[in-house]
């Protein structure tokens, strides 16, 4: 069975990760009997335990299954018609019982101590982590904040994931990174298979842990705790860069002007053209109204009201940009707030609009002549 599965694992290598730059999946390694490449110091230590457990488990497996096969062949009843007499009626053997109590106990204690030691290293928190990142999970998206890296407006760098790929988290290699996990609504779990690690994000609680990224590259992550409707689309990516690249990246991001803040709503459409009112109700109820009409070839102003009390939403239109990419209203409106988005002029036709944070929230926009 194991051989068959090994052969199978080899086959799946061919259908490995696609060439796409986006890692929608957790892991770029093909499935197999051993963990693939692990990118953090802590993760490497944890993954190093695996061969030890695997070898012990394999020995036990082969021993018991082997005994079972030997017994099944050697002690099968050879004849139904001829009585062989009763076999020896052995009721037990205290020495044997003692042996197969003590030896497994010793083996599992060795495993416990090995696991405990690695766990202590993994759980340790340093006094002065070099980078602190606040990660907030909410239905069904992530926000990544760098509290020590303010932008020109004085707010920390903050990235809310939009679309299925979620946000990207940039981390420096070789530095101690502390991640503080928050949850806004229900329990989520921050899981990066290539880090060999997950930790739950629990509302009303901040879970802190530290990782030391090591291998430069981009790694996929996903929410691992069932959190409702679009749980399977709660992706994010982590990009590990060299410390100098990280500094350069942070400096560039800090110097960027923050996304256009929503102008205060007023009677006159700020961008000219037509004004359309739309509100986001909730992730399950979607938009109100869910069908909109707009005139063609004129800039559109969307007065967007987020009536969802706690969840951020925004407004985006599929294939609305001249290059057929999606137009996305920025920045998202937090719970209970409003935003004004100015969209480019659209040609006549039917478009799908959606919330870029919650791509499952959809509606139809009909652009007429």
């Amino acid at each position, binding site marked *: 069975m194991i051989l068959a*599965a090994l052969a*199978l694992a080899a086959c*799946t290598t061919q259908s*490995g*990760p696609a060439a*796409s730059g986006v890692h929608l*999946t*957790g*892991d770029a*390694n093909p*499935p197999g*009997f051993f963990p693939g490449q692990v990118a953090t110091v802590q993760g490497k230590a*944890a993954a190093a335990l695996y061969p030890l457990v695997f070898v012990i488990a394999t020995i*036990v*497996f082969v021993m*018991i299954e082997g*005994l*079972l096969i030997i017994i*099944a062949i050697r002690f*099968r*009843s050879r004849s139904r018609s001829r*009585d*062989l*007499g009763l*076999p020896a*009626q*052995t*009721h*037990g053997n205290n020495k*044997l019982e003692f042996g197969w*109590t003590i030896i*497994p106990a010793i083996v*599992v*204690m060795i*495993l*416990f101590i090995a*696991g*405990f030691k*690695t766990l202590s290293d*993994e759980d340790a928190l340093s006094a002065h982590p070099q980078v602190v990142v606040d990660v907030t999970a909410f239905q069904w998206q992530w926000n990544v904040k760098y509290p020590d890296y303010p932008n020109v407006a004085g707010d920390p760098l903050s990235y809310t994931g939009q679309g299925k790929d979620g946000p990207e988290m940039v981390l420096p290699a070789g530095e101690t990174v502390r991640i503080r996990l928050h949850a806004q609504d229900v*329990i989520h*779990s921050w*899981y990066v*298979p290539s880090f*060999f690690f*997950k*930790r739950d994000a*629990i*509302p*009303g*609680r901040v*879970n802190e*842990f530290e990782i030391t990224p090591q291998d430069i590259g981009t790694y996929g992550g996903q929410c*691992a*705790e*069932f959190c*409702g*409707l679009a*749980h*399977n689309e709660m992706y994010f990516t982590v990009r590990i860069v060299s410390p100098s690249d990280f500094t350069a990246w942070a400096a560039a991001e800090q110097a960027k002007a923050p996304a256009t803040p929503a102008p205060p709503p007023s009677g006159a459409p700020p961008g000219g053209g037509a004004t359309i009112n739309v509100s986001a109700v909730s992730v399950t109820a979607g938009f109100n109204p869910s069908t909109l009409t707009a005139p063609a070839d004129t800039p559109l102003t969307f007065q967007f009201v987020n009536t969802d009390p706690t969840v951020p939403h925004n407004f985006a239109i599929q294939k609305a940009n001249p290059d057929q990419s999606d137009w996305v209203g920025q920045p998202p409106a937090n719970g209970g707030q409003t935003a004004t988005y100015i969209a480019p002029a659209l040609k006549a036709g039917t478009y799908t609009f959606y919330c870029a944070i919650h791509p499952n929230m959809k509606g139809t926009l009909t652009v007429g002549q």
Partner: protein
Amino acid sequence: MATTTLPQVRPYGRSRSAWVYEWVTTTDHKKIGAMYVATAFGFFLIGGLLALVIRSELAVPGLQFLSEETYNQLFGMHALTMIFLFVMPMTTGLANVIVPLQIGAADMAFPRINALGFWLIPAGGFLMMASFAFGGAPIGWTMYAPLSTRDPSTGIDLLLMGLILLGTSSILGSINFLTTIFKLRAPGMTLLRMPMFVWATMVTSVLLLFSLPVVTAGFIMIFIDRNYGGGFFDPALGGNPVLWQHVFWFFGHPEVYVLILPAFGVISEIIPVFSRKPLFGYRAFVLATASIGALGFTVWAHHMFTTGAVYLPFFSFFTFLIAVPTGIKFFNWLATMWGGQLKFDTPLLFAIGFISLFLIGGLDGAFLAVVPFDFMVQDTYFVVSHIHYVLVAGAVFAIFAALFYWFPKMTGRMLNERLGKIQFVLLFVGTNVTFFPQHLLGLDGMIRRIADYAPNAGWTVLNELSTLGAFIIMLSVLPFLWNVFITLRGPQNAPDDPWDGYTLEWATTSPPPAWNFEVLPAIRSERPLFDIKHGAIAAHGAALPAGPGETHDELRIDAPEEFLGQPLEGHEDASGEPRGVAPEVSAAAPDATVVAGAGTVREAEAAEKVVEKAKKKGPSAGPTLPDEKGPAA
């Protein structure tokens, strides 16, 4: 002659309505047990159907058949159906039929509570299934708060109500089992002479009694949170979502042993009988069962390693420790078979399948107990694979072993062996094809409870394989359904003791009369029937040579009915020498045998009472009471 040919149990009335009335109002533990088994099997088919829908959706990336909304309702209901409506009622039903027989009792201690316990199951099951019509329950079987407290679907309330009923049923059942086992054992049956299945049922009942009230209270708390603003688990209202996880897993982990200990008990019954040897290390088994029960309460938070809210080393330590008593069982089963004469009938095949596959589930458990590794695979398909190797390869295999083993006792009919073997092969292959690839998927980071996965992850082939396996498992159920169908239509042809058994259920007719026993053999060991057939000396001595003209098989196969009548007199071998046979308590001549058979005056009195009870019970329980010489005489 004291030999009595017991009457077949006849239907109580001729009309269909009388038949229905009889089954609806029965307090006979065997009938209630049969209803438990049939109901549980019906829910097994429903739960299996849900699993097939889930696996079909997961076969390839993308959403083919289901929306996310529908998918999210299915996996939780699949788990709850299989746990609360299949495995638990199934093992309760088997125990209901078998435990009173194995301890030589006439019925359960509280027959009416027993009936109530059963009728709560279809009621609870109906409420749970009805939730699909009211928005479903997309919260998984663990119902983590605050997801479960905030989702407005009415289906969740129905689900909770159903589960509260099922919890009540199990609490009633476990009280009943404990009372029965402690108070109604036949004279001579000390605790350390009880069959292992009775021990397993006893420990299971204790586990249920300590854990189920906790989670039933928890279900009520969630209900209050949802409907009356309780705020137990919602942080927005000052509650603590981790508290729900503690409440849930304080039940949830002992529950795993509730599901698997009866399976261990079944395997420990079948292996010795089909090896023609006693259970190796009976006392070690008892201690291992009891310590699994005790340790089962110390490991609940190993389901919560990634919450960052529990003291990890404590729970890791005890999780490792629980591997030790489980290992003891494995080694003792192997030692039981070693040197035996294995008869590869279907029950033994399923038992060996159980040992070889449950082992994989157990070894997965050792991986998961290593906390840093658990951080990697918690909530992935590795855990899905682990739980299914424990519960499909474990509980389901043991349940089929038990059904094949005890079907003749329950119905008086032998299931077809050939169909049984076909079923075994299909189930064995299907289980491995379905669940083994999931190890690799989990190790590669495929999380569970997702309707869809990325096409670029390289998971497609393994998922296709897993889906293929699920359909093989489905195929394996078909021969069983056909087998039961044709067998129940056939004549009642099962001998009283078809497997050359050791325990008291084989000392009465197949099926037993309403009052269970005409006579009770004396109980001198954990194998009273073996002592009768072969003599107490044989039970502890070396292999007996078969004398000329005397073969044990002859006794077993050719004249089982006569043979079962014999115990009253004691079995004598060819030379006419009694082989140290223990005398019997006989309904026909209680005075003559009780004194000789019982060790103490007190036991003798108790034995007399049992006999009198059986006499009294006779007329009320059935219209055709045999007289002391047997109905035909």
